[in-house]
C-alpha cells in the first residue's frame, strides 16, 4: 500500500522532471512549451511508514507561448500553456506592449490554455480595464468547455467578459 502510494507520488514528480528535458508535460495539457527547470528534489520516505512526505525545492515554470498576429482591426494574442501567478505576468507584458505600440483592440485567444486560475483571470480583467482606458477593447476567445469558460462561469465574470467560441466570432 505504502509502496503504491510512493510510486504514485514519484510518478507525479518524475513527470515534472521529465518535462524539463522534453519540453512537454502532457499530463497538464501543455505542449510545445519552453521549459526552464532547475529540479533539485529530495523524496523522503521518513522514518515512520506514514505519512508519505515529499519535500523539494522545485523551480519549475513552463513559459507561456504567446503568438501575436493581426485580424482585421484587432491584434490576436494567442496563448499556449498554463496561466497562473508564475506565468500571468508574461501575458500582461505582451498586452501592455501592444497598448504602448498603439494597438488598443486585442483579442486574447485562450483556446490552447490548459489551466487558468484567478491570477490569470486578474490579468485579463486588468488588461481589459487598461485597454478601455486607452479607448480600446479586449475580447476573449475560448471554447465553452475550456478552463477559462468554466472559471468565468464560476466567478460570474462571464456576464461582463464573455468568451467567444472563435476569433472569427469577434465582431469588427
Amino acid at each position, binding site marked *: 500500500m505504502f509502496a503504491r502510494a510512493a510510486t504514485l507520488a514519484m510518478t*507525479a514528480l518524475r513527470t515534472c522532471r521529465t518535462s524539463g528535458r522534453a519540453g512537454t508535460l502532457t499530463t*497538464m495539457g501543455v505542449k510545445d512549451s519552453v521549459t526552464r527547470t532547475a529540479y533539485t528534489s529530495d523524496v523522503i520516505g521518513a522514518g515512520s511508514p506514514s505519512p508519505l512526505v515529499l519535500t523539494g525545492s522545485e523551480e519549475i515554470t513552463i513559459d507561456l507561448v504567446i503568438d501575436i498576429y493581426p485580424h482585421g482591426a484587432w491584434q490576436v494574442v494567442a496563448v499556449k500553456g498554463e496561466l497562473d501567478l508564475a506565468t500571468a505576468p508574461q501575458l500582461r507584458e505582451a498586452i501592455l506592449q501592444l497598448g504602448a505600440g498603439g494597438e488598443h483592440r486585442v483579442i486574447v485567444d485562450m483556446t490552447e490554455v490548459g489551466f487558468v*486560475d484567478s491570477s490569470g483571470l486578474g490579468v485579463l480583467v486588468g488588461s481589459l480595464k487598461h485597454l478601455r482606458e486607452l479607448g480600446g477593447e479586449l475580447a476573449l476567445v475560448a471554447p465553452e468547455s475550456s478552463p477559462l469558460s468554466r472559471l468565468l462561469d464560476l466567478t460570474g465574470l462571464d456576464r461582463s467578459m464573455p468568451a467567444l467560441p472563435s476569433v472569427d466570432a469577434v465582431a469588427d
Partner: protein
Amino acid sequence: MTAEPTAVPSPAGPPLELILMATPHALLPARVFAASAARHLGVDEPGVEDVRLAVSEIVTSAVEGGSERVTVAFSRADGHVSCTVEGAGPLDPEGSDIRRADLLDALVDDLRVEGATVTFHVPTNSVAAADS
C-alpha cells in the same frame, strides 16, 4: 465522457503530503501533485480539475501572503477526500478583483479557513467509494 475507471480504489491509508517553498514556481508541482493524489484517492475527473484549481488558488495565497513554506496534504475519508493546506495566506487580500473565497466555495465542499490552515473536501466516485 467514457466510463473508464479513473483510479484504482485505494484504502484510507496514510495521508499524501507535499511540502514546497512558497514561491511562484511551487504552483505547477503543487497542481501536478494535487491532481495525482486526488485521482489516486478516488476522485473522478471533473472533481480532479476542481481540486487542481482549488489547490492552485490556496498555494497562490501562500505565495502572495509571504509564507515561507506551504504543505499540501490529502487523505481519504468516508465518501470523500480531504485536503489540507498549511501556510496559506489571506484568500482575499484588499484590492483583488476576484473573490477567491467565493470561487473556492463554488469548487469544493466544506471549505474551512482557520488562520493559515485551509481544508476542504471533494466527493469520491461511486466505484471507489463503494469499495471503502
